[in-house]
């Protein structure tokens, strides 16, 4: 899923100053799974804002709602009125949802309550880890299902570097596993170690973000 974390409270609080009526809008998909912007988080943030306003003597109407996704037009129908009534929307969707909300509701101020982080997975409750960099040319077949682009701190295709120690990456040994130790172990278990003796040529980075903002068109699916 796309993972995100909530922005620090004071940053959010600063953003909403001056508005009389705001809607805190959550998203029921990725950010619910990573516990950053779902219905529960909307409730907590709205409470926190009200408590802060109470302390500071600020009058502000805080509405709350959550829709299935903020990256598909159809889900906005249920909250269309609430959005239109609000002076500003504090969106707890990922960067995609915040931007798309702005496109659907032209002229409406949509504020980002989250910092979008990475494509990742849930390791255990409360812990998420990056897995994919969206490079546009998947190399997982070559590396036994472990991505060196996303999981190696230096995105080495012919790793490891000298900083691999006890299976950890020297950049942050507490939190980052050495992707190349993982790749080595996996290829060994798959009996494919000799594949790692091949020198991988330089990558074509133009298939991803380096080639410019992406767009996908399925001609057979356009109306």
């Amino acid at each position, binding site marked *: 899923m796309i993972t995100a974390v909530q922005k620090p409270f004071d940053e959010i609080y600063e953003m909403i100053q001056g508005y009389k009526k705001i809607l805190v809008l959550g998203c029921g998909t990725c950010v619910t799974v990573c516990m950053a912007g779902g219905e529960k988080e909307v409730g907590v943030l709205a409470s926190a804002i009200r408590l802060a306003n109470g302390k500071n003597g600020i009058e502000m109407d805080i509405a709350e709602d959550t829709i299935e996704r903020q990256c598909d037009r159809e889900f906005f129908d249920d909250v269309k009125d609430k959005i239109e009534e609000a002076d500003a929307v504090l969106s707890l969707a990922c960067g995609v949802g915040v931007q798309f909300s702005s496109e659907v509701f032209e002229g409406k101020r949509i504020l980002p309550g989250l910092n979008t982080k990475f494509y990742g997975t849930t390791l255990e409750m409360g812990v998420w880890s990056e897995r994919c960099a969206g490079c546009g040319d998947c190399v997982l077949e070559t590396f036994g299902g472990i991505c060196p682009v996303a999981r190696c701190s230096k995105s080495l295709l012919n790793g490891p570097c000298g*900083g691999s120690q006890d299976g950890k990456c020297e*950049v942050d040994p507490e939190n980052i596993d050495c992707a190349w130790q993982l790749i*080595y172990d996996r290829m060994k278990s798959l009996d494919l170690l000799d594949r790692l003796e091949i020198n991988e040529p330089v990558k074509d980075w133009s298939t991803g973000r380096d080639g410019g903002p992406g767009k996908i068109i399925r001609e057979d699916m356009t109306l």
Partner: protein
Amino acid sequence: MNGIKSGSNLEKVFAAGKFAVTAELGPPKCADVEVIRKKAAFLKGNCDAVNITDNQTAIVRMSSIAAGFLAMQEGLEPVIQITCRDRNRIAIQSDILGASAMGLKNILALSGDHQNFGNHVTCKNVYDMDSIQLLQTMKTMRDDKTFINGEEIKNSKKDEPVEPKIFIGAAANPFGDPFEFRVIRLAKKVKAGADFIQTQCIYDMERFEEWMKQVRERGLHKEVKIMAGLTPLKSVGMAKYMRDSVAGLSVPDSYIQRLAKVAEKDKKAVAAEGIDICVEQIHRLMDIEGVAGIHLMAIEWEHRVQEIMEKAELLPRPAV
């Protein structure tokens, strides 16, 4: 290795079958040339070539090529370093052309320390290529006379190619993990184009000898010139720091005990003991089959290099 590829002094020393010696010079963190001149003066005549580091530990310093050129003017032969952290393939190939045009003949390919270690941690990560792809790039430019996109290295259609004539170096870490994979990675570097290798500094002789055994089993010592890395221990504090804080480095207790014993009697004599240990290491390394030279990293201790070389009986350096 057939025929001379670059004509560099280092290459010729190897070709003549002599035991080679390289040292290291860290460029200044400013635009001052004097720092280079001072360090160069200590190293001149005491080694066959000098590594000029490239923003080592991701701390901004004068560029390796610039500092290398200035060092060359002081009579040293530089080994330029290029890391993959800061430059993409356009800048790298451009720098290789520039270095070659300036008369710099030895280039060492490195992945480069992650910027997290340095003084500009918020910068963008490049790593367009890794060290093995960088070796391949240098080999392609030199031997195929093309850039890595296949275009010939020539200024216009009617001209002849003018390719960089370089002696290609790489680093190797006999002590990193996974241990079983280290020699395979060395083989990859040799296949990619490395002419010579410099290892991380060695204290654990047994482990290094084990690595060399595996290297010889694959015949790699015949395909590439291997230089063993050494850093003399200046003090007990330094020895302990190297043991505790530098990933992958194990410093035998016997060295620390030796230095501590001397420190008890006379603190000033510790440095000399450290140099003795270094000289013993050099002699032991010279006896290992497949070791073609040493890479002496006497960081901020350039003024003691001559003494080490004299005691190790490696002076004068061969004239080739």
